């Protein structure tokens, strides 16, 4: 039997190794995205036998209707609160626990696990706990408020505060994860840099942080920012379990609206349009990470 030339054999091996994965990616990622993109220009409903082309009508509905805009602004507001708070608190907790490693390593480890618990726990289950905590009359929060002489509030059914309540729960859930990422970043900072900073006169807490810690955490911070942002944009579980977007759509968010339109009202066309918008936001975020910011934080 004649053997194939080396180049052909290499090409065959490459096809063997890369082919299945590529095929799976095309089938399970690109194809569905394509279908969703196509559906977003139709009035298709789940189960229907036919659909009509309606052009950009779905997008007009999302950006034009009060309800659609509500979902978008709510999501943006939620993200605008959760990102800085979750990243800032995560960094703060990580700095504190990292320092504590020097004088109370065991306590530091215990606290680390405590902060990480919300990440490990199922959010749906934790929502039940939050419902108890925030219960208007029996909840710990209101009882404490009353005990301190404050006014009890309807945390989950007051239109003006429900979104902030959800944001706080979102922060509570994200801080632990961000903390773990920041801790890993802190451990990776070469100790000689701190020595150099001390010799150079930047040994005080404040100047140490700005001269060494913060710049060296640049890549970590960027990663944490992107992760937190994508998670915040995807907010769903708390909305679905605690408020169902209510009261009066005061806590309606993009993904919850997507779920409602697609899986409750079976408006597949409209849901696809929401998905495409959502997809575009996440894609922009990711591209921003790779193109703009990454070059600046790796100091090349």
């Amino acid at each position: 039997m004649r053997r194939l030339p080396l180049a052909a054999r290499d090409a065959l091996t490459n096809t063997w190794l890369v082919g299945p994965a590529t095929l799976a990616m095309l089938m399970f990622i690109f194809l569905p995205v394509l279908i969703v993109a196509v559906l977003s220009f139709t009035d298709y409903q789940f189960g229907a036998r036919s659909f009509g082309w309606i052009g950009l009508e779905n997008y007009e509905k999302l950006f034009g209707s009060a309800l659609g805009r509500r979902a978008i602004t709510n999501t943006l507001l939620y993200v605008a609160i959760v990102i800085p708070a979750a990243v800032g608190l995560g960094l703060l907790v990580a700095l504190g626990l990292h320092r504590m490693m020097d004088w109370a390593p065991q306590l530091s480890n215990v606290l680390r696990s405590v902060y990480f618990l919300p990440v490990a726990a199922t959010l749906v289950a934790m929502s039940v706990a939050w419902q108890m905590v925030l219960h208007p009359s029996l909840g710990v929060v209101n009882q404490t408020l009353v005990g301190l002489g404050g006014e009890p509030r309807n945390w989950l059914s007051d239109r003006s505060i429900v979104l902030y309540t959800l944001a706080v729960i979102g922060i509570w859930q994200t801080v632990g994860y961000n903390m773990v990422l920041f801790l890993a970043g802190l451990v990776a900072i070469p100790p000689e840099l701190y020595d150099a900073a001390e010799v150079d006169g930047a040994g005080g807490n404040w100047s140490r942080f700005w001269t060494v810690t913060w710049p060296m955490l640049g890549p970590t911070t960027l990663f944490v920012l992107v992760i937190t942002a994508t998670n915040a944009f995807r907010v769903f579980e708390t909305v679905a379990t605690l408020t169902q977007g209510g009261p009066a759509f005061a806590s309606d968010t993009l993904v919850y609206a997507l779920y409602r339109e697609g899986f409750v009202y079976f408006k597949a066309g409209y849901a696809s349009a929401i998905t495409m918008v959502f997809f575009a936001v996440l894609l922009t975020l990711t591209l921003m990470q790779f193109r703009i910011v990454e070059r600046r934080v790796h100091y090349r």
Partner: protein
Amino acid sequence: MTSQAVLELRDVTRRFGASTVLDAVNVTVRDGSFTALLGASGCGKSTTLRIMAGLDRPTEGEVLLSGENVADKTAYERNIAMVFQSYALYPHLTVFQNIALPLTMRHLNAFSRVPGLGRLAPGSATARELITKKVTETADILSLADLLHRKPNSLSGGQKQRVALGRALVRDPVMFLLDEPLSNLDARLRVKMRSELVSLHKRTDRPFVYVTHDQVEAMAMADQIIVMIKGKVAQAGSPRDLYDRPADKEVAAFIGTNSINFFEPDDGLGQMNGYPVNALIGIRPEHLAPAAGGHFGARLETAEFLGSETVLGLRTERGKEILAIAPGDYPVPAPGSEVRLGVSPERLHLFDRQSGKRLNAEHAR
């Protein structure tokens, strides 16, 4: 040496938990000197340097800077510059900003250091001018002028090394501490930087303390070498002292390019006239040369021709392996043939067999 002591360590001991890293170390660094702390890894030389710098505190003992106890002074307050083995440059700052950092910390307050906004702070313009002037001068000395706007990650090892030196140089410190500064450079560059460091030392006229595990570096640059072994100062002295009169057999083994030959009394040198039976005899390979009427014979096993010299590996009749160095033009006999080796008596080192301490020839006789 009559010059004044700039820095003194008095009975400095440092323990980490149960392990004693430094054990009652005494070191004196005099004005204008170039001191090398020489030792194998883990001997405590880097800890000694960190204690000098103020990055670490002794468990016991005193650190005196110009006669004053500096126990409660930070590294910065001592105004000692340090160059780190890994260079420890700030990767987010340009070369200019890296070199300028000690000055910006000194001359600008927190508000003036804020990028952009800080320029509005009163008095910061003159301070900035001064900083720019000093950094430019320093960069010229180290021929870094073309690199001032680059980031450290785009520099070669040698260039990073210069930036680290620049950062130390710019602040005009009372002394320089260098922690194995050349160990990350390739061999050729290392030799070049060696002479640059020496000329930098002459130029600044400040004491240098140089940590290294490479005895060649120490011998080439220093006027005082402190050999540290297992957390103790084994010997301190000039390179010639250490080479000619090592205080014990470990120092003798550490100093010298070719490792010294040790002969136990029953290794076949016992018949050498006039020498005691119970001393350990050390002979450096460069003092052991083929000679027609030599003191003893050994069989040739290997010969490495290095141009200016030939390193001979031999074995005595008792099976002891030894090294000897012959001149480059020595006609190497066939392997296995007997070579007579000669040594001049004043080149012998005698050590106590139990303690390893040096014995004076007169004592041992």
